[in-house]
């Protein structure tokens, strides 16, 4: 959909540069003249918002690394030093810590947008897979980062997650020792997690470039889920249309971001992480950060250690093959009456799993006699639904569902019949 380049160098210097390194042409064709479907709604602004989040995390992270000390002796104290002594340290750290949460809020909206509008379907499978890869890298980065303040949740979170690898048959034990660099989570672990926490955002940036490249090869999806037929009628140039819309979405998002940073900076965190790590005492209630809770619930729902680990990783791995599990030719849920309903049930199941992950596993939800229906029971039902949604509903719905008629064109889906005669822009 990128089509022919429309770039014409304006002066002698840009003409000279264009013959040697056509970087201005690349920018122009990707972010200025790039044709975007004219029917994009605000759910399509999250790509830009996510780019902003990544930039914020990298910039604040580089600055924080100038003051942080990755040793078990000093890590906790150096974070407090950042909070109390370093100029604007409190601001930088709160932006970075809450920035991780905001990053995940944005990525979850972005992913559910993709699920709702069928953005993963041909010819955008590779685009989707690269996205899932970014999501995986994000979770790893967030996990490494959460360990660095060396509070109780940092330490015990690191212990539980690294122990997951111990469940792997045969090599599990030695793999775990290798990850730790010792016989428990300790100095070598903290040091390497710091190194990797610094590295991974740049890996994310690399995959983001591939993600955007793939996007610009296949062209953006859109709420109608149909391809561009006539670029003149169906698309508008990226600048100013998408740029301004993205900017407005970003400002609204920044308001939410600022609320957390300035008015509720610890609202999404765990108070236990303000207690320094103690390898001899596990807090009574270990929970990961909110964005990992659904997977934690799946892990705990399985009574078998290896089985729980397999299902937890399987819950993410299944996203990679989603493009081939969905048998429906229709992309957008707007025209899929059955899928539309199951989409919301799935969203509710994910939120439900998140709730379960944050609760004590034996908490009774509905009392019956001595026992009753507890959080583990609910997690089990929701885990079964999670996998059934992918393995049963996606293949079956496409076969039995009768989709609504698709609009003739993108222009026809948003414009009254009369206006369609006029070319866009």
């Amino acid at each position: 959909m990128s089509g022919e380049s429309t770039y014409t160098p304006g002066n002698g210097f840009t003409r000279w540069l264009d013959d040697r390194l056509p970087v201005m042409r690349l920018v122009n064709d990707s972010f200025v003249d790039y044709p975007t479907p004219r029917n994009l709604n605000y759910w399509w602004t999250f790509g830009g918002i996510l780019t902003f989040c990544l930039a914020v995390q990298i910039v604040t992270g580089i600055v924080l690394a100038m003051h942080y000390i990755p040793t078990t002796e000093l890590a906790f104290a150096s974070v407090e030093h950042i909070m109390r002594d370093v100029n604007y340290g409190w601001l930088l750290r709160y932006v970075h810590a809450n920035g991780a949460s905001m990053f995940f809020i944005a990525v979850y909206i972005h992913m559910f947008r993709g699920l709702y509008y069928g953005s993963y379907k041909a010819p955008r499978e590779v685009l989707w897979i690269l996205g899932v890869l970014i999501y995986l890298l994000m979770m790893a980065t967030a996990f490494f980062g959460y360990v660095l303040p060396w509070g109780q949740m940092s330490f015990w979170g690191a212990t539980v997650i690294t122990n997951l690898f111990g469940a792997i048959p045969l090599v599990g034990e030695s793999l775990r020792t290798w990850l730790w660099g010792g016989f428990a989570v300790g100095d070598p672990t903290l040091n390497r997690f710091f190194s990797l926490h610094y590295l991974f955002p740049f890996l994310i940036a690399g995959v983001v470039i591939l993600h955007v490249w793939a996007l610009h090869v296949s062209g953006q999806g859109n709420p109608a889920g149909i391809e561009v037929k006539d670029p003149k009628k169906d698309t508008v140039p990226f600048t100013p249309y998408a740029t301004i819309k993205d900017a407005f979405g970003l400002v609204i998002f920044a308001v939410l971001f600022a609320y957390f940073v300035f008015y509720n900076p610890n609202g999404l965190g765990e108070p236990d992480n303000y207690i320094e790590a103690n390898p001899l005492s596990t807090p009574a209630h270990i929970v990961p950060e909110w964005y990992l809770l659904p997977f934690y619930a799946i892990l705990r729902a399985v009574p078998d250690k290896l089985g729980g680990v397999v299902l937890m990783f399987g819950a993410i791995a299944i996203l990679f093959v989603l493009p081939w599990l969905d048998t429906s030719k229709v992309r957008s849920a707007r025209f899929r009456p059955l899928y539309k309903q199951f989409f919301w049930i799935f969203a509710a199941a994910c939120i439900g799993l998140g709730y379960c992950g944050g609760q004590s596993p034996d908490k009774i939800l509905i009392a019956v006699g001595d026992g009753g229906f507890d959080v583990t029971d609910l997690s089990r039902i929701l885990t079964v639904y999670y996998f059934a949604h992918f393995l049963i509903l996606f293949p079956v719905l496409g076969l039995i569902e009768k989709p609504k008629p698709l609009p003739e064109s993108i222009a026809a889906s948003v414009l009254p019949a009369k206006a369609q005669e006029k070319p866009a822009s």
Partner: protein
Amino acid sequence: MAETHADEPTRRDFLYVATGSLAAVGAAAAIWPLIDQMNPDASVLALASAEFDIGAIPVGQEITVKWRGKPIFIRHRSEEEIAEAESVDVSSLPDPQPDDARVIAGPGGELEKQWLVVVGICTHLGCVPLSYRGEYDGYFCPCHGSVYDTSGRIRKGPAPLNLEVPPYEFLSDTRIKIG
């Protein structure tokens, strides 16, 4: 090159394969230090054994010491606790092990049944269990609810194995060396 037959390996093919193989071996050799540097280093391994004085622990009490960065529970078991651990039908346990296999012989050659030494790390996902809690008077893990008995054996919950008994020996009646 036109007269070379593709189905007949030539001297040149051999050189290609041999060079490629050597390059692969060289690459693997260069990668290995990058991987192995993450394994426990000499200073970590140097702390692999430690001695502890256990003479001051009264019957029915327990201390926690640190070995290789892990908590080690040293419990001075009472007669009742020993009896409780021995009375269990071993075959009914998830990880069957008689109590005798969980204690070691002292300097006199007799089993020191009153001393239970276990690694205080839940075999599920590595939390530290709470002592003298849970329905078997042994340990209870607050993370995911595993329950261990007075021999540190798993009785209930998601943990697959008994609490690990570290390698240790009695140096005298009141001194042990772990590791």
